[in-house]
């Protein structure tokens, strides 16, 4: 789902950075407030976890496989702010150290997956957990996959509208959102189910583990 460099216009990615930078700052401040001196170790550990989750591939019947995003699980386990910062950090390491993913698009990806994915998952879970916990968790995982896909679809889709050459030809990503939105969202709506089940089972396993540790 990572948008690579070169598909987004400067107006788009600059706006995204303009939004992301203050949010990163707020996130770090909030974390410092909650965790005091342990903010950094927390961020490092959850980021590494996030990285592993993004590598995780689930083989599907029929020979194909999907990569998890793990964002739903991170958000319900550690809260949306930690999740947002960890996703941003992993994206930064991936692009700047491993050369995978985009740098100009880092802020867009971080906002879509990290911020919106985490908050939607966290919100969805909070909303439904009183009704039925498993449903709430599956929904959280599903939202964490579909919401960022929708944001990415729209962001790509507005490119031909906001960045045109002299004759109206697209300068960056050439398809408008009528094409991108369904192309990105529909597959993710299906993948989101797998993500949802992993979020549900993963959290249940974690709770079981924690309860036993606490004894």
């Amino acid at each position, binding site marked *: 789902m990572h948008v*690579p*460099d*070169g*598909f*987004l*216009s*400067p107006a788009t*990615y600059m706006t995204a950075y303009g939004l992301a930078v203050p949010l990163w700052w707020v996130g770090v401040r909030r974390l410092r407030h909650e965790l005091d*001196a*342990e903010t*950094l*170790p*927390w*961020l*490092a*550990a*959850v*980021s*590494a*976890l996030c*990285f*592993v*989750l993004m590598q*995780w591939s*689930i*083989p*599907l*019947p029929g020979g194909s496989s999907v990569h998890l995003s*793990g964002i739903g*699980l991170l958000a319900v*386990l550690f809260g949306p702010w930690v999740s947002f910062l960890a996703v941003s*950090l992993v994206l930064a*390491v991936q*692009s*700047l*150290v*491993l*050369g995978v993913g*985009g*740098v*100009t698009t880092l802020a867009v990806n971080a906002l879509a997956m990290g911020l919106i994915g985490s908050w939607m998952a966290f919100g969805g879970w909070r909303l439904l957990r009183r009704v039925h916990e498993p449903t709430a968790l599956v929904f959280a995982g599903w939202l964490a996959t579909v919401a960022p896909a929708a944001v990415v679809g729209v962001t790509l889709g507005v490119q031909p509208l906001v960045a045109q*050459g002299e*004759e109206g*030809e*697209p*300068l*960056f990503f*050439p*398809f408008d959102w009528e*094409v991108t939105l369904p192309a990105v969202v529909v597959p993710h709506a299906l993948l989101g189910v*797998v993500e949802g*089940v*992993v979020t549900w*089972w*993963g959290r*249940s*396993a*974690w709770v*079981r*583990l924690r309860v036993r540790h606490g004894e």
Partner: protein
Amino acid sequence: MESRGWSRRRLGDRLGLVVYGGGVVGVTLVHDPVWLTAAGVGVWLGAGKERGRLLRRALRLALPWLVVVSVGYGMVAFWSGLPVGEVLLRLNLRVGVLVLLTVVFATRVSLLRAVDFSPTLVWLFTMVMSQMVLWQRLYEEFRLALVSRSPGEPDLRTVLQASANAIAWFADQALATARNQAQALRARGLLE
């Protein structure tokens, strides 16, 4: 005491970071295919001895996206009579140059040295990266263990169940690691 070599290299890495940042923004501001080609050739020549390998790596990363988008747009534009040639040329060149630039930067410049004005950032990147390497190896072990304990391809339910449990283990490890690191930092007088 820092060695002279280290500080000279650090200066180079910071310069690299600045040049890279400027380069990336620059490439998204230029729309003339001639200039984009020139930028690509410039980056490629500046990539040093490993330029062949780096170019192959960049192509491997960029091609899947480029092929899908180019073929798709080519067909749509052909049927509806939109401009094709220059749009696709520009798009492919731009994405190609940017990916190459990033690959060259990631190989040639040490991010750790470039950000070492902030001990916090250096620590964060070091911890994240060392954990990433360690856990990636463990992830592979989890995968192989499931294969070796299954009579055939494990079914989706087993895979999901095993993944969820392994993920819970990783999450638990993350907590333990965070706690240990906080203690280690405190023992070295870094947190208070």
